[in-house]
């Protein structure tokens, strides 16, 4: 039973570029959430997708957007990258719109130069 998988594991971009991160949820899960974790901090909620729609968004600008596909996998897109976007991006999956136990992937480490 595969857990939550994310790709790529590491990514280096320059300011102003755009990036797409990918996530496949744990088998049987229907809800995907994205979190940003800066060095030395706890993860911060970006947004959640359920039934292919964004249900809730944290305090992140519109440069951060996402998508959920019919097979429940998800993408996180970040436009016009800033140095401050450098962080570990974590995908989490769960059941029932996030009302249950959350399982995290290993993350994508994004460095913006």
């Amino acid at each position, binding site marked *: 039973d595969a857990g939550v998988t994310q790709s790529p594991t590491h990514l280096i971009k320059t300011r102003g570029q755009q990036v797409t991160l990918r996530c496949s949820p744990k088998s049987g899960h229907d809800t995907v*959430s994205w*979190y940003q974790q800066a060095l030395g*901090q*706890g*993860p*911060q*909620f*970006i*947004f*959640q997708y*359920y039934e292919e729609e964004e*249900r*809730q968004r*944290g305090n992140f600008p519109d440069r951060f957007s996402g998508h959920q596909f019919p097979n429940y996998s998800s993408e996180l897109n970040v436009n016009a990258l800033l140095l401050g976007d450098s962080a*570990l991006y*974590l995908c989490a999956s*769960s059941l*029932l*719109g*996030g*009302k*249950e*136990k*959350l*399982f*995290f992937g*290993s*993350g994508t*480490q994004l460095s913006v130069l």
Partner: protein
Amino acid sequence: GIQVEQSPPDLILQEGANSTLRCNFSDSVNNLQWFHQNPWGQLINLFYIPSGTKQNGRLSATTVATERYSLLYISSSQTTDSGVYFCAGDSGGGADGLTFGKGTHLIIQP
């Protein structure tokens, strides 16, 4: 949104010691969960514990929802317990996303 305060921020123990980590919430919280982040960054869900007590091997957790706090107990620590422990919860029906504390950085020395 809710505020999550974890204590202590740092803890250094010898192998075999016991420890208690605490998490306080500023308001009523749903979906309270404890996580362990290992040195490679992987977040492992330890407990989903909105209320009551649960045990899993050497780890146990207790949440007193009416008093807005949760405790994580680690007994007979091993070096593999090292890492950062986070608690997290949300104030809504699950779609608000979890709010995480800043974590407790635990180091177990051999």
